[in-house]
């Protein structure tokens, strides 16, 4: 999520004045976009449409929006789990892996193993 899309979101953060079909298509776009290895899109999807999906009174598109939000949340949790596990393993074992650890690293700290 770069700075321009943040401002874009800021401009339409207020979902009040947007018709429901557009809300649904926005939610769908963010959901599909997250499959391109962009879990932050799913995070934004969950945070932004949470109120729409679960706290607003029912309207036609809400069911689909709810399903997209749930699936984004699931994907997000999977990503967080995988990344946390890998980062923990890497930080712990990089020094012991010697050569392999060095080839996997982008920046190797100076002066420590």
């Amino acid at each position, binding site marked *: 999520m770069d700075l321009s899309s943040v401002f874009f979101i800021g401009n339409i953060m207020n979902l009040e004045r947007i018709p429901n079909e557009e809300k649904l298509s926005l939610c769908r776009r963010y959901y599909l976009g997250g499959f391109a290895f962009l879990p932050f899109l799913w995070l934004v999807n969950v945070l932004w449409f949470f109120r729409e999906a679960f706290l607003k009174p029912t309207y036609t598109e809400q069911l689909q929006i709810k399903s997209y939000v749930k699936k984004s949340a699931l994907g997000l949790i999977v990503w967080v789990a995988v990344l946390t596990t890998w980062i923990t393993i890497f930080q712990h074992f990089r020094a012991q892996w*010697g*050569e392999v650890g*060095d*080839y996997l690293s982008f*920046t*190797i700290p*100076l*002066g*420590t*193993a």
Partner: protein
Amino acid sequence: SPEFLGLGCVLCSSVEQKIYVVLNETVPCVRLLNATHQIGCQSSISGDTGVLHVLETESDLDWILSSGPHPPYMVIMETAFFNRSVMMRMKNSSRVAGVAVIISKTGLADNFSPHTTCPNQNTGVESYGSDLANCNGTVWNPLGNGLSYEDFSFPVFALKDENQTQVLRKCYEDHNQRVNGSAPQYPLCAMQLFSHMHAVTDTVTCMRRTDLQNRFSINPEVLCDPLSDFNVWTSTRPLNNSAKGHAADESVVIAATRLDGRSFFWEQAPAAEGTVSGIVTLLATIQALYPVTQEAPPPRNIFFSFFQGEAFDYIGSSKMVYDMEKNDFVIDMNNVHSMLEIGQVGLLSGRSLWMHSDPVSRQNKSVSEMMSRIQSAAAGLKLTVDHPSVSQPLPPSSFQRFLRARRIPGLVLADHNTSFTNRYYESMYDDAENLNVTYPPGLTPDEQLVYETDAAKSLAEVATLVARSLYLQAGGEENNLNNITADPKIVAQLLYGFLVQKNNSWFRSLLPPEVTKKGVNSILSPGPPQFYIGLGPRVHGPAHSVTRFVQYILANLTGTVTNLTESQCQNPSELSTENKDLFSYFWVSGPASVNGTREPFCVRASVRLSKAVSPAFELLEYGSRNYSTWTESRWKSIRARIFLVASRELEMLTLGVGVAVLLLSLLVTYFISSKAELLFSSARETPTTTY
């Protein structure tokens, strides 16, 4: 080695100057790595801070390691406590932030050698798994405590300057002294040492990471550099430097010695008995031998070589042997007839000189012939020469690397029969005093330069013996021997220049004019030269100072004066009378005349430098077991400073008060902004009613 830091702090904020007292001359211990280990010292990236405590008695040691209430401590260690047991206890304790060792002669123990008991045990000739490997036969350095080869995770600095030590002591006495056995109160005097080293684990890792950085990083960082410099060599008959490989019709006797030393600390190695005795003897030998070899040349050529880096697994000699085997040197192993090496020869004191060999070589007739030649050469001199027991192996020497390649006959001359007589081998205390080079008080520097101490006379005798033996070994006539005598005055000048003061009038006259004119960082800075090999021209500029001195002294002793101009001296190939393949040309300052001017001139000599870097780095075998793999880590800055620290409680209180003020101010701001109309409305009411 240090990297360029950028602008120094010229207009520092005065608050910083009020807090910190920066220590100017720092002598650190740095990290060195080889194929499998790292040795030396490391600090944290932002320095290690500790409360100062002077270690003078056993109770101080107890205070630091267990009972003191303000850990971690920065230990100021008196000389007597710098030994293995105390340093190991510091290493295993978590309450020590760093150590600053006072280097002085008061309180110095009878012996101190931080080197190992068996120097270079894995790269000598006995590493083939024989019974004599690992000093099973003779322990060469029994007084060695191995401190230089330990890995410390805290910084260790040396305090050589008495004034600096006084500043530290005063700070300690003012703030940190215990009053009647009770603990001192905050604020306390603390010291922070910075010596963060970039390289870790071993040379293989560090070179791999350097390669990765060079290939893939935008801003490559070099982590370590191989130890390298130059060997110096010369010969009685000039050798064609452009013709590599086997030299036709040349049978060569090699006379060798080492050029370097080391100690626990970086760039500190006075190496008097360990190295200077050998250098001075070989230089005096060349001075004695050279004129006779020109008038009555012996059948064989005599090749003199000064090997650099021998303290670190024989860097220079392994490189020369490697070049010889690869046909990349002026001679090869087939040209070598025999070899005589000069080991530590300075502490004779009336006893005899010893000719070392090894059990396998002793069975060779050539070796016993060589011994008898040396003994006959000693006949007319006051020296006695003897050989140790037949079953004893060779001491650590460059000759071992030649033997590893081929069984050539050779001997190593030393003043010790079994283990070293040097009680301060490879330490900071192996200085002029250790060699008994002392001058009577009241002499000017120029008088000291030519004063012949007993050590000078003794080394001149040894040099005469070596020169005569070499002449005989090269097949020369016995009746010429009496013309071969080393001049004690030259030996005295060499000892003064290498042990006491390198910026003397004789050295100045031998060196090029640009060296004698340069400022602070020239190789002629005051004091004795240091013999640590260093990182060579790639990192430090032109060759090491000792290498330069030996090169120019040899040019002076063996060269001929020519009447070439300066530009002709730089480019002699344009002249038909001069031969750049056989000779080197040096533009030297010449002696200073009465009114201080010098008339430089060009000297032609067959003195050459050859690269001394371990073959492991050419072959890219960084984990090599056969060659030296020593590298020195790089670092950003090495400095030290002292300041007062407050107690942890006061620090936390200050932080807490600050956070509280922040929160309070946020609250007040929120409150005022929400009630803004009420607070600021009274001034605005009246204007609306005027229309």
